[in-house]
């Protein structure tokens, strides 16, 4: 015996409206509109939620010999320790390379437009950013 078919089943995705993104929700989405809810007193520190800026690349170096390489910890767990060990590797294996380990001062999820990028442009020849996740 044929099983009964169920008709007029509505799709959970049916009719949803899509559009260009504004900004990605940081940790939990945009806050409720004014008057439609009250923001929490807790949650992550302010500033989460801005979109990352588009990448732009420097020209590559011919060699790292006698160059200054910034090793930038972006703030994810273990990143600083990794950069320190990377620095140790350069010291032991490529001593002509000067490495500078720095922690990105702003929030891990944001391009904080800090002076660090200016410092790297002025004093550095290359940069390694990490570690994500």
């Amino acid at each position, binding site marked *: 015996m044929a099983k009964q078919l169920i*008709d007029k089943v509505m*799709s959970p995705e049916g009719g949803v*409206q899509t559009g260009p993104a504004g900004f990605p929700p940081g940790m*939990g989405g945009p806050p*409720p509109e004014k008057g439609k809810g009250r923001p929490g007193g807790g949650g992550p520190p302010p500033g989460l939620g801005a979109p990352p800026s588009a990448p732009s690349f420097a020209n590559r170096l011919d060699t790292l010999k006698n160059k200054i390489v910034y090793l930038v910890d972006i703030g994810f767990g273990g*990143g600083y320790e*990794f950069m320190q060990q990377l620095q140790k590797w350069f010291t032991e294996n490529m001593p002509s390379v000067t490495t500078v380990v720095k922690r990105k001062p702003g929030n891990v999820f944001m391009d904080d437009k800090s002076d660090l990028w200016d410092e790297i442009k002025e004093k550095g020849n290359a*940069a390694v950013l990490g570690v994500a996740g």
Partner: protein
Amino acid sequence: MEGVAKDNPRSASLPFIFTQSTVVGMSTEVLDKYIVSNDPDTGKPVIEGIIDVLTKPVGTKKPTPPPPKVVKAKAPSIFLEPDTEDNLQQLFYEKGWTDGLPVIIPTEERVKKMLAGTSASPDDVVAESFKFDTMEMVKYTVSNIAVIAVMAGAKPEYFPVILAIASTRQPALMGSTTAFGTMVLVNGPIRNEIGMNSGIGAFSPINMANSVIGRAWTLMSLCQGQAKPDITFWSSQGNNNTYNNMCAAENEEKSVWEPFHVTRGYKADESIVSIFRGWAMLSTSGAASHRSLVEELNIQLAVMPPMNSSATIVMDPLVARNLKENEGFSTKQDFTKLLSKKIRIPAGQYWKTDQIDMLVASEAYKGVEPYASWKKLPDDALIAPYNNPENINIIVVGGETSPLFKSADYSYAGSAPIDKWRAKK
């Protein structure tokens, strides 16, 4: 740096290098090994990859395709093809629309009945969410949420609460590699009108309204595409309290203190849903027999270095009554002020906690107090990390069979009114 590449930087692929595994918590010996071990993506040593990307042209790999252009997407069909119950259940599961448990198939008739639970127009937009996989904002109408409410097993009278949850725009499931947990609290008259449980076993799977309303929030996240493994969802272990998000009502009748929503500025006769989120929820094995509650909470909360001083304590009415009648805390604010002063942990313990280092250290570097001062302290100096008592949430839930309590690092993520979504009488 020697200048920005002349060619369009967006056309080149960002050179990523991968270590063998995650670096957090690894010893220096392991990190040293990672540096000389092969990148699992390229098969060549990590250090060689680093040197190569600094000294060889970027973009030699196949360029990463740009994000898809946002075009006016063709809205998915309102109706699915007719099929059998079994096939539809399987389809819903395979589409990622369910939590793995069977759902109520949302026929037009059932959705129509659900819509009778609100005075809002079916086309009213309730929520927007950002889709990381398509980089789009997606708007969800009352009708979309009604479909999900039916799937969760809701009665029409639950629908205003579900719409209020949707209106917070908070996802139940977070894409984070960590394992966020959540809690939904309902205050005000609607709790009793729809038969929510705030007493014995309020957090147990024994009450239809609690179970279904909490589940509906998770189904929203699933149907909105926020939990596609490896695409929009990366929680390494997940968190099974997101099956129904600890949905419960506050036991306002038995509480000796003002209800939570009143603390947050709403009127007592308003019906309000509140959302909490965090990582650690500690359910005690029993009451402290030879310590005060403050001492007990000091022990428990000290192992959860807080973000923004946030904590949530869910206590049985017996606990609240004892604190008021025998310990002298006339208000819950009196109690949270004391907790704020008393709970102390070493600065080193605080800063060496991953999420604190990741998300709070930047505040210290910017000079924001008290983080800037705490950052300068030696590891063994004691700090009071719950420095803002207003961020310690006290909620009263339970059936007065034992003076139990739960402590959590959960933050208050916001509230939304329910009454505006109710059906007109």
